[in-house]
């Protein structure tokens, strides 16, 4: 945990709000998923909220976030409205992708989300393409390609870093490293240290991916460096996945130890904010209350929304 001088109270509260929003969504999914009201495979982000939130705190709406299959945290952190995401999960035509995408495919160009992909790895290149777009248009933006340790196995990871470095593009390679590809530990699927590799292409940064402040501070450095130089950077955030790769069950894997109190990014941030007197318990409660209301409204919105018309598929 870094010194509090580096983060302002408003920033801390903002991180808290964004993380908690994601957490509440996960909890809602846990609650209803077994009733089959959400017909879409979910990759929950429980325990991993800090990574997306700590990074997105430094992004503007125009900045681009390119996501893979595990979308919820990144999408909400970047600004995709909760109700749009919920409606998508409920398969309604008001969903962010008109119900054509489901959990793995979110879309909100107004907030810099130009789609996400469930084929591991390829979305990294899309982020690089967005960065190329900024450069060609002499725009100021930054693109973030967010991916897991498993995606580092894929050749497209290598190719994307090489091109971003050659072309000099403003893109952050954000490795959300939960040390798992499905049930495979990282040691079994990725031989080298990805950060050491990345260092051959660009400056690299590190943060504790279960600690929003740590991510916030490293991301701040990395992103301001990108904005300054127009060149790529790499941010490595080890974190922990609490649930099965997909679905709503917990999973105990022998090689991953999880302490759901100590490892919880939200509890960590709470103690930090309270300890540093950057927020009072009352303020935090208020945030939660406000988010719970927002969630209720979003659920209502989603459930009231119509299903898409099947005529769309008639030839």
């Amino acid at each position, binding site marked *: 945990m870094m010194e509090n001088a580096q983060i302002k109270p408003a920033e801390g509260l903002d991180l808290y709000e964004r993380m908690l929003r994601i957490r509440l969504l996960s909890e809602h999914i846990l609650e209803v998923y077994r009733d089959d009201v959400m017909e879409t495979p979910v990759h929950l982000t429980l325990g991993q909220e800090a990574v997306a939130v700590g990074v997105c705190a430094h992004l503007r709406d125009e900045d681009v976030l390119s996501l893979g299959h595990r979308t919820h945290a990144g999408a909400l952190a970047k600004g995709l409205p909760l109700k749009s995401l919920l409606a998508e999960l409920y398969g309604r035509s008001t969903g962010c992708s008109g119900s054509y995408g489901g*959990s*793995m495919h979110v879309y909100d160009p107004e907030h810099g989300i130009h789609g996400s992909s469930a084929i591991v790895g390829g979305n990294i290149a899309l982020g690089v393409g967005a960065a190329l777009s900024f450069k060609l248009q002499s725009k100021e933006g930054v693109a973030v390609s967010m991916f897991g340790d498993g995606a580092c196995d894929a050749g497209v990871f290598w190719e994307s870093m090489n091109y971003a470095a050659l072309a000099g593009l403003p893109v952050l390679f954000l490795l959300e490293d939960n040390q798992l590809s499905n049930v495979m530990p990282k040691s*079994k699927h990725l031989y080298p240290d990805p950060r050491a590799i990345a260092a051959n292409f660009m400056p690299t940064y590190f943060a504790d991916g279960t600690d929003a402040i740590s991510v916030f501070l490293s991301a701040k450095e990395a992103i301001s460096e990108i904005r300054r130089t127009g060149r790529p950077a790499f941010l490595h955030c080890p974190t922990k996945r609490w649930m099965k790769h997909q679905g709503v069950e917990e999973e105990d894997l022998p090689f991953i130890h999880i302490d759901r109190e100590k490892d919880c990014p939200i509890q960590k941030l709470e103690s930090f904010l309270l300890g540093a007197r950057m927020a009072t318990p009352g303020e935090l409660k208020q945030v939660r209350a406000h988010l719970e209301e927002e969630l209720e409204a979003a659920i209502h919105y989603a459930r009231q929304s119509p299903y898409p018309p099947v005529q769309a598929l008639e030839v």
Partner: protein
Amino acid sequence: MPWSRFEKQWSIQEEGRILSYKDALREAIDQAMCLDPKVFAIGLDADDCYGVYGSMLNLSHPERVLGTPISENAMTGVALGAALTGMRPIHIHMRVDFLPVAMDQITNYVSKWKAMFGGKPKVPLVIRAVVGRGWGCGAQHSQTLHGMFAHLPGLSVVTPATPRDAKGLLLQAIALDEPVLFLEHRWLYKNEGAVPEEMYTIPLGKGQYLRRGDSLTIVAPSLAAIHSLQACEEHDLDVDLIDPRTIKPLDRELILDSVRRTGRLLVVDYDSPVCGFASEVLALVAEEAPEALLAGAQKMTFPDVPMPASGVLERRYYPDPDRIAAKAKAMISRVKGEGALV
């Protein structure tokens, strides 16, 4: 994802030892591994506790099941390299949607290797991949693509519909010295049927009748074959139902014989319509037996759009037994009632 909802929808009522499609696959792999130490399996998550939807669990030689990184392209090259140097790999993919990642190897290497060197190399490589419709997976996790693969010279494309065929065709694929793409539909995994215990092979390029009738020929592979059979049984349709079993090579004679007799053809193909298997069958008949087509030929496929995620759309996207039956009835009655369409 409640697979239980649609798994084991339908089973063949047969004499003999009853096995699920999944266990038939498992048995084929196990027996092949026991018979020949050169047979091994390799694939992303092939060695994990879920064992590719159960099809790889409790094998006699777990040491010959190798996991891989998420590197489908290189791993296809690795499997090919092993096949060329004395091994008989089975390369496994949990979803057919991951095969495009390996498409350079499949298109430019695997399927060309034998011909490119004058027919000399042996390429005993099986690529297994699961077609995985379901539960709002969306466009990238619900593809079939057998039409795309069948376009490639040098690659056989096998699509077993029944447990018996799953075992016999997989053993045949493993036994061959040529590359075979083996596509299993996830919805067939729990279906049951009689499967001989001993090892046996079913030749590629030999289709089979799943039902006999005179008014219409239905050609349907994989899950579409089972759905068509359900349609025929539940609606008591007078249909000659052909499961080609292998998309490529195709049992042309079987199809032509039937169509010449029934004079009407419906191809039910759970894949995209353009340049796919359904068109291939219609083209075959157009070329070889146009006179048999006067009473009508139709395709029933996915619409020509990517699969949407929402359940209501997903269910509409895939044909099903009732819609197959309705289409078949319309074709039969139209013909019977109004004469040929000339």
